């Protein structure tokens, strides 16, 4: 088998279900090529795969809000600092909760890439936050039916509504006192929130995650 090391090959593999055959052996060949575990992760199968999927998203969110609080954007208000600090803390709790639940099955810490975000700019930060929160809600909504164990479903349920609260709060910061908190762009005519499958979510998250992540069993 010809193994290519260039970036385009890696990008192809990231989140790629189509590369499932290759993914299956990646664990075997990655060490041989000196790629550290921190730079590659496979989410795994079944409920472990779903929990790792959630864990990956929570890692992304936690890293994002940690940066937001470390380097506040220009003109941030006290109210915004309080809300964003809370959200950071929630995402860290979610991340750590999932990591503990996954134990030895947890994927490594992901390396994030926020080069597209201008952390000095309110619109850039809150716009990204909105994308992450809406994406998180849609991810959990879509993952529910994929979860086998009712206990895990319950835990996902405890998290997703908090993500929805975040989404509403962020949206209201961007468009105060408007219908944006639950706008027609995310809630359909039946009053239903967005639902996305893992492939869609992972493709959307991909630009923000530098680590090679494979999700062969989910997409």
């Amino acid at each position, binding site marked *: 088998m010809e193994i290519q090391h260039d970036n385009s090959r890696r990008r192809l593999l990231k989140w790629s279900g189509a590369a499932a055959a290759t993914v299956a052996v990646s664990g075997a060949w990655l060490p041989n090529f000196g790629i550290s575990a921190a730079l590659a992760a496979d989410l795994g199968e079944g409920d472990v795969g779903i929990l790792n999927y959630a864990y990956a998203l929570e890692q992304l969110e936690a890293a994002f809000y940690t940066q937001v609080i470390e380097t506040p954007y220009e003109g941030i208000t006290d109210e915004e600092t*309080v*809300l964003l600090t*809370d959200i950071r*803390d*929630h995402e860290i*709790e*979610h991340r750590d*909760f999932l990591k503990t639940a996954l134990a030895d099955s947890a994927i490594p810490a992901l390396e994030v890439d926020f080069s597209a975000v201008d952390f000095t700019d309110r619109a850039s930060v809150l716009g990204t936050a909105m994308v992450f929160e809406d994406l998180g*809600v849609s991810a*959990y*909504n*879509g993952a*529910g*039916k994929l*979860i086998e164990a*009712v206990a895990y*479903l*319950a835990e996902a*349920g*405890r*998290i*997703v*509504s*908090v*993500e*929805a*609260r*975040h*989404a*509403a*709060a962020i949206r*209201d910061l961007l468009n105060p*006192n*408007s*219908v944006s*908190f*639950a*706008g027609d762009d995310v*809630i359909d*005519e*039946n*009053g*239903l*929130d*967005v*639902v996305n499958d893992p492939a869609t979510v992972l493709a959307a998250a991909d630009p923000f995650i530098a680590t090679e992540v494979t999700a062969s069993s989910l997409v």
Partner: protein
Amino acid sequence: MTIQTNHLIADLNPEIKDILVSNRRAFFKSSALKLGAMASAPVLLAMTAQNAFGQELPQEVVDVLVFALTLEHIEDAFYRSGLESPGLIPDEYVGIFNQIGKHEAAHVAFLSAALGSSAIERPALDLTAGGKYADALTNFDTYLTLSQTFEDLGVAAYKGQAGVVAVNDDILTVALQIHSVEARHAAIVRKIGGKKPWDGAFDEPMTKEEVLAAAAPFLA
């Protein structure tokens, strides 16, 4: 607006009804355009919901949907009443409550459609809870308190039933989609009331019994 779902189904062209009942996937492929021409989108979805959910559902799932519909009826009536009460909702928030009310009405319509003949009509309500909230529709602070109560209750209620409806992927997904909308509502209503949009990193479920006990005072 009252959605007469059963009549809608009954009034369907028999040919389309057969398609709906016989094969949902085929229906989506072959008849969506045809049906779309004669029915608005919500009606279309309501009918597919009837087909997807209304047949052969385990009784415990039907019970959960009736339970959910009961809560949605309360919310729907609550926002209708609030929006119809002159001077209750400050101008700057009317748009928000209109949006929330629109969603609750849609939930009632959707769940009613999903339940078909098992759907319940709106129960008789007492939004003052026997006089405990006598100014529910005249004092915005009271109205906000009740709104937050209903929204947070809805979030906890759907969360508590996820395990029961998990036997049906479609219903579980719809329940989750409603669940997160209720959470968005709860967040904005809390914000208007000067509160944090959340209580912490995790939202806790409530059992059906707990939810009904909380809702009972509002059922006349």
